[in-house]
């Protein structure tokens, strides 16, 4: 049964919520500015609950099954984090309250800044960016501001490997800089020769994802960083893949100058069906003054017992605000709670088991699926969803068929440098039993691809919906529905 749209459930005069009457004398409404109609649905609370509960059941989610979506770090989201973020003292504080009234919030943000600094080896962190891509544009703007502050305005290029996530070039453009693409070599590393050629005094920075989107640790990371630094550029780290590096290596120690974190990946804040995330940016000391703000600082003792211990400040050369208020505090609470439970030993264990799980899947699947860059990987790896013996079958077919086994498909068609890519990231929270069941399904599908490709082409079979017609969606472009009255009127 198809779930109707919320507007289809509407009936004129139906109420969804009880509200108080005004307890003050009403004031005349502003003339000429009052709207005549308000085309919202009219439904009862029960309608709303049933509607969204039923809709929810149509989703695959971490809490219903394995979700090995490469580059997305779909790890389990501990329930205690949700409770923490909903505590009254957190959820009902206003971002513009006086510092003295929000010391708990500021203390939490301060600790989170400190921990992120320590984990990644940086001198300063701003929690303001809203997501990974937001962290990227922030980071690029910091790099730009830094060079200009040095009086060096000619650095307008950002070098980006061809395996990079689409946000890297897009963020670069948004910051007003130019993208220069770098090829990868046969082992999945940056092509050092090409890098050398690209390095000159117009290079503002290299954007490096390490481990890269193939799940591989850059084998020449030291040479790469040195090369960039030698030509006066900086190294930006896309921290989306930090789940492989906790307690393993600090990007700052490798010479990275800027890095964004994805709290919604590495630090397990839930993805929410697309967001919200949180993309703090960490920087080396020379860049600290350029961070967006406000950031939290600990107040020096000033003798007074009553003084607030933490306060918000704007870094001296700040690129400015990148968001109206203080960042996604609700996500900060979740990440704080998570990190506090892990501690030092727990963080290292996260990466160890994320990397172990990915390598285990790689080892068990490499005979069935071609793994183009087949070496010890980090937290994920990329296989190909194609076989010579099954000419009509594509990665998409494998993906859709996996749904019939109760699994969410891996990321498809990314990174772009692998044909028919299936990018598999199991995360550390999945058990060997789950991975074994996934391997079993993948092997069955590989066999079906040869024996009975139609079963793949027509997949999924057991999900509530079959394949959706994306071409039609783009052609007809129905992006919004209007209430029945309006449709009649209009």
């Amino acid at each position: 049964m198809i779930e109707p749209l919320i507007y289809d459930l509407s009936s004129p005069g139906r109420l969804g919520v009880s509200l108080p009457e005004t307890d003050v004398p009403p004031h005349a409404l502003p003339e000429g500015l009052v709207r005549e109609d308000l085309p919202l649905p009219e439904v009862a609370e029960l309608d709303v609950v049933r509607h969204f509960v039923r809709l929810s059941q149509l989703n695959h989610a971490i809490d219903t099954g394995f979700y090995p979506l490469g580059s997305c770090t779909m790890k389990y989201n501990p329930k205690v984090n949700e409770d923490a973020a909903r505590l009254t003292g957190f959820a009902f504080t206003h971002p513009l309250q006086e510092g003295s009234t929000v010391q708990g919030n500021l203390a939490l943000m301060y600790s989170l800044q400190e921990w992120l600094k320590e984990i990644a080896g940086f001198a300063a962190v701003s929690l303001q960016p809203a997501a990974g891509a937001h962290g990227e544009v922030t980071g690029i703007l910091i790099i730009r501001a830094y060079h200009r502050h040095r009086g060096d305005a000619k650095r307008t290029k950002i070098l980006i490997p061809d395996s990079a996530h689409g946000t890297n070039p897009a963020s670069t453009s948004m910051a007003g800089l130019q993208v220069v693409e770098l090829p990868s070599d046969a082992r999945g590393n940056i092509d050092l020769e090409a890098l050398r050629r690209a390095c000159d005094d117009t290079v503002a920075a290299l954007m490096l994802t390490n481990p890269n989107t193939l799940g591989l640790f850059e084998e020449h990371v030291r040479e790469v960083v040195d090369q960039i630094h030698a030509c006066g550029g900086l190294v930006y780290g896309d921290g989306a893949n930090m789940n492989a590096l906790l307690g393993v290596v600090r990007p700052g120690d490798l010479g990275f100058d800027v890095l964004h974190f994805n709290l919604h990946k590495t630090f397990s804040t839930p993805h929410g069906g697309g967001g919200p995330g949180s993309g703090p940016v960490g920087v080396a000391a020379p860049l600290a003054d350029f961070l967006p703000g406000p950031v939290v600082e600990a107040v020096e003792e000033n003798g007074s017992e009553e003084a607030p211990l933490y306060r918000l400040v704007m870094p001296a050369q700040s690129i400015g605000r990148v968001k109206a208020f203080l960042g996604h505090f609700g996500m900060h609470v979740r990440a704080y709670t998570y990190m506090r439970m892990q501690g030092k030993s727990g963080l290292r264990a996260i990466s160890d088991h994320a990397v172990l799980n990915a390598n285990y899947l790689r080892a068990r699947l490499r005979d069935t699926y071609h793994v183009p860059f087949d070496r010890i990987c980090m937290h994920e790896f990329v296989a190909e969803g194609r076989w010579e013996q099954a000419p009509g079958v594509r990665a998409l077919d494998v993906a859709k068929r996996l749904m019939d086994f109760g699994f969410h498909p891996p990321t498809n068609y990314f990174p772009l440098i692998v044909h028919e890519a299936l990018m598999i990231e199991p995360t550390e929270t999945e058990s060997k039993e789950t991975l074994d069941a996934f391997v079993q399904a993948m092997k069955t599908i590989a066999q079906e691809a040869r024996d009975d490709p139609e079963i793949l082409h027509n997949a999924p079979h057991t999900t509530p919906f079959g394949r959706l017609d994306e071409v039609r969606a783009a052609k007809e472009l129905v992006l919004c529905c209007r209430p029945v009255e309006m449709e009649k009127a209009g």
Partner: protein
Amino acid sequence: MAYIPHTERDRQAMLAAVGVGSLDELYQAVPRDVRFPDLDLPEPLSEMEVMAEVQALAEANVDTRHYACFLGAGAYNHFIPSVVDHILRRNEFYTAYTPYQPEVSQGTLQSIFEYQSLICNLTGMDVSNASHYDGATALAEAVTLALAHHRGKRSTLLLSPAIHPHYRQVVRTYMQGMQVKIHGDESCCTGPDDLIRRLDDQTAMVAVQYPDFFGHVADFRALAAAVHAAGALLCVVVNPLALGLLKPPSAFDADVVVGEGQPLGIPLSFGGPYLGLFTTKNEYVRKMAGRLVGQTVDSRGQRGFVLTLTPREQHIRREKATSNICTNQGLMALASAVYLSVMGKQGLRKVAELCYHKAHYAAEAIRRVPGYGVWNEGEFFHEFVAKCPKPVAEINEILLEHEIIGGYDVGTDYPELKDHMLLAFTEMNSKEEIDDLVSALEEASHD
């Protein structure tokens, strides 16, 4: 090791399958000298210990469930029907990713489609994206849309000074690498006429706020006509809750409407996560930032939904994308969809009216307190600026003693408005609270 299911036996079997002898061996590619740093981090805490710790942190704050709150300035203390959070807690919603695989994501997809529809119907616009980070970044990306629309031929942006100061700052942050001239907001108190005077053939976009930062509401038809006559786009930053009562910006022929969706069922949460609204006319849809959900059918003939017009986005178009946005505010969009559904036509209107009446009751009362005045002229919605007899910080300190969170110090952003306090009123403020505020203000003027 919380949340890691591996038993020692599992680990050994898996290492053997991989062909390494230990976990450490997995990291050969990592330079040895910096491998396995000794991190200076606290020891792990158990779940019960961490809950005690975060509870203590939370209770170290003053919150709006225990103090009366008259602070607004872009984030508002509204009633959130219980049902909203009950839906957000559905595991299938909050632990799903972006709906890249529509066959197993129809819950998210249909919800977003409904969100888009609700926001379109509320603003009167043709098309809404699936959300942006917040109101400020949505405004910044509206500027990008305007620049793209003019294909680099126009590069001036006119900002009303009555746009939230943070929003204007964010626009400037975003535009610092572009060749864009931004002006119009040099002084606190110039109106639309000043913007009209500044229009020229370089103007890509004019942006105003409605209700504006000071709470004012005004008809922007004349401005819109002038802007369009000059070949520029008009962007209106809205408080969507006010649109429960006020004419939608489509009535002024706005081209882009952005705003902060937080008032629609999202907790204050010390500033985030909130919800960036981003809507426009059909003609600009291909220049729009962010995800869009469109209706289609599946292989079985069922109506269904997919992400559409993806060639605008970074994962397809990379450096040529309309924006870099990837992760958005999905769950917050869901919150506002649930909120708008359950409030409905009558509920949203009623809440907007309650806000309006309470603010006007307060304004009348504050006007009568010696030393204070109402700075606003003309109509306002649920916020206004009170002239104060002394620095706002001093007054707020006294209000705190009365368990009142006072208003925003407008002088922070507008030096001309030193000793002016922006006060916000919502359905959460009872008459009694407002009366208490008024007498506390009076008291504060004496001290």
